[in-house]
């Protein structure tokens, strides 16, 4: 793990689970694999706290455990899965996607499961029904069957999956089992045949409305208590988790479609959307391109609302194939032409566009021109750069050296003679897309870390003011509940002076901006990560 990734994981763990889990988590990331005792000894925390933290991490799927180096008889070893910690940054995006696809019910289901790590179907259905009922007007309540149907749809489209069964029983004492391998790999969820099979549960009823007379304590109890009456429903032990990979495939498809609509036009993007939707089930996760689809099939699958005639479809497809971004490729002529969407190439082009835009925004459009030139022409001498880019020599030198010092451009030496004499060596400038993408990804992680730290700093600076405003809001709320007069309300409101109000307002504005920036940087992180992963998969 790189320094920036470790730092980001630490900040995210602290934000969601507190300092104790952060300490345990970062130590485990740095050390790799550890046993419980070793972890407690090295972090100098009480053993119980370490146990609690590990429970939290295992519950959320961020930590895996298995028989260690000494085999099943030895102590259990724990390993952290950094990727799933960094996914915490993207939780709002997952929830929003679920909302846009499956409505409020889907949104709440995904939110509950993300917050709790793993849940059984029955407990999810009950909690979500209760939450929805509370938001509905008085007298109505949400039926369990609607929530169950939303849950089933999420499972059918693979957005939710069952948690994999344990490979071994940890430090179990059963010696009758066949000897386990020295390092048990955690089973992939997809290798379990029942991964997407819904259990039959006997659950009927409606969501219960939370009575306001029960007050705050009832809320806490309801929120904290895991529903313990699973035994009625028959799905004991079957836990569901969010399938992040499926969400990532969806985001990737969205990125491709929006890129096509920006570059070409709306109709072409609808055609690409249809093609991607048709090949959703048949394409593997790491495939370089979708299954070949004939033009006839695409025409039949196109929704009539798009109003694209058959000859127009062929024209659009040939335009897409000829486009330098290479989103769509033609693989044959049968059936009116066989077309595929080039997934990996599309990702590479999107990553390249990201790199170019970063250079443009930081160093100006002329430096961006040089950068694009080097990406296309691979290796160029300094003189050639000046000529091709049509930039005067002095400025071109300056820009090249700035890019070189930022490590966006590399220098390749080609000697003419065995002694690398400078006068007899070619110095060529070059840009390698993959290492540059990795560099920028690390910059993105660092950016997010800095944003989070700045936000924490801002909140700490204004802590006193925030607490005061919280107290006043609480007082106002209680006054309004008891229907006090307007005079009392204004009196309480005036307890915050005008400059304090302005300060609060500007603080709120800053924090919103910082949070929004985090979300936006996360989009770049997603693109770069997908690109890097796609190059690794194809090896």
């Amino acid at each position: 793990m790189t320094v920036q990734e470790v730092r980001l994981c630490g900040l995210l763990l602290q934000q969601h689970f507190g300092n104790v889990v952060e300490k345990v988590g970062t130590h485990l990331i740095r050390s790799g694999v550890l046993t419980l005792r070793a972890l407690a000894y090295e972090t100098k925390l009480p053993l119980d706290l370490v146990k609690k933290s590990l429970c939290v991490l295992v519950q959320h799927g961020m930590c895996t455990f298995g028989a260690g180096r000494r085999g099943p008889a030895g102590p259990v070893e724990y390993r952290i899965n950094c990727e799933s910690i960094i996914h915490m940054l993207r939780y709002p995006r997952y929830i929003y996607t679920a909302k846009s696809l499956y409505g409020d019910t889907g949104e709440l289901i995904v939110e509950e499961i993300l917050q709790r790590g793993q849940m059984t179907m029955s407990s999810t259905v009950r909690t979500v029904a209760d939450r929805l009922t509370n938001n509905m007007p008085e007298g109505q309540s949400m039926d369990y069957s609607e929530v169950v149907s939303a849950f089933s749809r999420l499972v059918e489209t693979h957005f939710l999956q069952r948690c994999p069964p344990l490979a071994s029983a940890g430090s179990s004492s059963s010696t009758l089992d066949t000897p386990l391998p020295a390092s048990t790999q955690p089973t992939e969820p997809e290798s379990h045949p029942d991964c997407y099979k819904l259990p039959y549960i006997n659950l009927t009823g409606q969501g219960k409305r939370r009575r306001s007379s029960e007050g705050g304590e009832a809320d806490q109890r309801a929120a904290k208590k895991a529903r313990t009456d699973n035994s009625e429903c028959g799905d004991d032990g079957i836990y569901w988790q969010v399938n992040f990979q499926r969400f990532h495939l969806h985001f990737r498809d969205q990125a491709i479609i929006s890129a096509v609509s920006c570059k070409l036009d709306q109709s072409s993007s609808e055609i690409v959307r249809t093609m991607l939707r048709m090949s959703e089930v048949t394409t593997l996760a790491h495939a370089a391109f979708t299954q070949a689809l004939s033009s006839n099939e695409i025409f039949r699958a196109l929704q009539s609302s798009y109003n694209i005639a058959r000859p127009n479809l062929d024209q659009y497809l040939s335009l897409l194939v000829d486009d330098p971004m290479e989103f769509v490729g033609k693989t044959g002529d049968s059936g009116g032409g066989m077309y595929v969407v080039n997934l990996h190439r599309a990702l590479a082009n999107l990553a390249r566009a990201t790199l170019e835009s970063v250079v443009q925004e930081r160093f100006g459009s002329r430096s961006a021109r040089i950068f694009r030139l080097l990406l296309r022409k691979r290796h160029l001498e300094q003189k050639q750069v000046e000529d091709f880019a049509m930039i005067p020599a002095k400025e071109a030198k300056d820009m090249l050296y700035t890019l070189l010092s930022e490590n966006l451009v590399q220098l390749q030496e080609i000697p003419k003679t065995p002694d690398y004499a400078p006068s007899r060596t070619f110095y060529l400038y070059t840009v390698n897309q993959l290492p540059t993408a990795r560099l920028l990804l690390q910059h993105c992680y660092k950016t997010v870390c800095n944003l989070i730290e700045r936000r924490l700093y801002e909140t700490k600076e204004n802590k006193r003011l925030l607490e005061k405003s919280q107290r006043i809001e609480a007082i106002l709320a209680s006054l309004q509940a008891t229907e006090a007069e307007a005079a009392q309300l204004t009196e309480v409101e005036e307890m915050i002076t005008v400059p304090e109000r302005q300060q609060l307002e500007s603080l709120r504005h800053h924090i919103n901006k910082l949070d929004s920036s985090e979300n936006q940087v996360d989009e770049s992180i997603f693109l770069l990560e997908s690109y890097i992963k796609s190059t690794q998969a194809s090896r």
Partner: protein
Amino acid sequence: MAGNRGRGRSQFTFNVDALGFGRGDSLPSSAQTPSPLFPPMQFRPVPLHTGEEVDYMLALKQELRASSKNLPFHIKAARTKTDVARYSDKYQNGEPKNNCIEWSPDWSRMPKELCIKVRKTRKAAIGARPQLTPKVAAKKEEVLQKLETLEKREEEQHSEEEEDEEKKKKNDEEEEPDADEDYDEEELEDETDYIMSYFDNGEDFGADSDDNMDEAVY
């Protein structure tokens, strides 16, 4: 290779023009200090995206952050008592203890060594006691049990010991968690005449400094 040393003293081995400065000029001075922490930017950054989607995700993010503080997964270390033991300690509740976990995970999916006592709320424990009194009989075990329950009443709020744990587990199986939680905890507790806030020893004031200060929900 000795090669071509050159006739003059100031002849370089590489083509000087390519470097961008002439022969007679002085070299740029070397940097004496580290580069500035916040270097001035040449170009202003592009403004952030706006729109309904962006606003909704922002609200989601802040809500998630605030609600995760209230979940039982947010682990706080128990505060070590630096002072003398106080009478009000018996009536303090709600403080996280190190040796119990606030939620009940599925232990069959976790390694055995992580198993830790699940914290029973005080209400659950209170609900248990009224049901104990009818069970008292003249038998030896019942007498022992009565002694133990009396002992438990005294030590109610201290860190639970092994026998208490088993007792409570047995009792909790009998009770209904939901029904007994209507007790007004403050007044029926341990037959005192005082409200629970009477026993607030002021330790909480200003003590929750903590650095996971993540602020108000907007």
